[in-house]
């Protein structure tokens, strides 16, 4: 994680993290929490690699990925502002 601090007249004003925030839903929250913060990756395939290495239980669970509110079906480019969510299926009724 890279951290940039800007000084303004010696006064601290902002901390910008070069990374991505991933929102998790349903049973995935039990594995990794309701959100995880990771170093920036260029696309969703590499994101999955990082996530599965960090949280091996995720690899055993079914979920789909949404990037900027669109559920994706193939590898998708990410940028610093991408909003990524992991959505598992629910069965309860």
């Amino acid at each position: 994680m890279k951290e940039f601090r800007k000084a303004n007249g010696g006064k601290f004003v902002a901390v910008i993290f070069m990374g991505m925030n991933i929102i998790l839903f349903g049973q995935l929250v039990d594995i990794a929490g309701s959100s995880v913060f990771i170093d920036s990756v260029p696309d969703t395939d590499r994101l999955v690699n990082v996530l599965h290495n960090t949280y091996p239980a995720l690899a055993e669970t079914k979920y789909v990925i949404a990037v900027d509110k669109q559920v994706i079906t193939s590898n998708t480019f990410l940028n610093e502002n991408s909003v990524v969510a992991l959505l598992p299926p629910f069965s309860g009724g």
Partner: protein
Amino acid sequence: MSNASLYDRYHRQIILPGFGEEGQQNLLNAKVFVVGAGGLGCPALQYLTGAGVGTIGIADDGVVALNNLHRQILYSANDIGLSKAEQAANILRQLNPEINIIPFKTRLTNQNALTLFESFDIIIDGTDNFSTRYMINDACVLLRKPLVYGAVSQFEGQVSVFRNETQDDVNYRDIFPDPPKNDEVPNCAQAGVLGVLPGIIGMMMANETIKIITGIEVPLANRLLIYNSLTNEVYQFNLSPGKTKPAGVPENTSKFLKTDYEWLCASSAANEQIDADTFNALIEKGNIDVIDVREPHELPEVNEFGNIKIPLAQLANSTNQIRSDSVVTFCQTGNRSLVAVKILRRFFGGDKKIYSLRGGIVAWKNRVKQYERQQG
């Protein structure tokens, strides 16, 4: 029903802008089938009955239990042990005697779903397991019937509408192409659920149903809504139809009828591997392809039973050699054949029953030797 009493009962919704007598008439003409009269089904049924949906079918083969009452709001303590479908119908008829309510005490399966759904306009999925959810989805795609989907998990709920009018309409398999095993995702009985949540989600399902029938606003098609009852956050995700569907909706009704949905979502540990005795029994039964996924040079040779030799690396490109409804893969000790099961299941989906021989050919030969010693 007289126009005067119609006007009176439904007055508060008829006066809504864009609704009117026409909207009400559309509701009275509509036929809605609700699968599952549980946590989602009860509130959905109650509001659809109140709103005056003219014909409502209810399928549930369960009986009311004490631990249902905190969320399945149609039932009372006196109903414990009674059929949910029948008891729900009784309660709903008291709420609105002017509509037609048809209970089905049967379990919905792929053998009766097409027939039951046929005479209804909209299907509501209020079930509690993946096998039935995938089956209902496939039935609705094949019949081109709109499906209102809802599901809950602890403090979160999902809602969507699958219109099934054209190829561009997203269905459940476009969101979740791989059926999870029923034990892979905890259900309400295992993970718990606060009664209010299926109440909210069930009402959203009723709301979407009314929107489809009356044409007010756009229903939640090609979108997945997720509601979090703890944070009160609502998320909406846009959905696109899947481009390739190797293991998708069965192509036609005869394939649908042959699909084993229970098996599709059966727990993987119990169903991926079979032992030597089960394997022998399957061979005895016939209609089975046995596949040796070892490399050509590997020993021992196997000629005790018919088998097709496809090394693991070539399996994905050799699926045309597999024709029977049941498939057993084997290797030396049972590890590579587990990978083979995954490859084949991805390709065939629920069309075939696919197993791995536990312990591989080594374990099978040992078992046969042991059996011969016992006999002789």
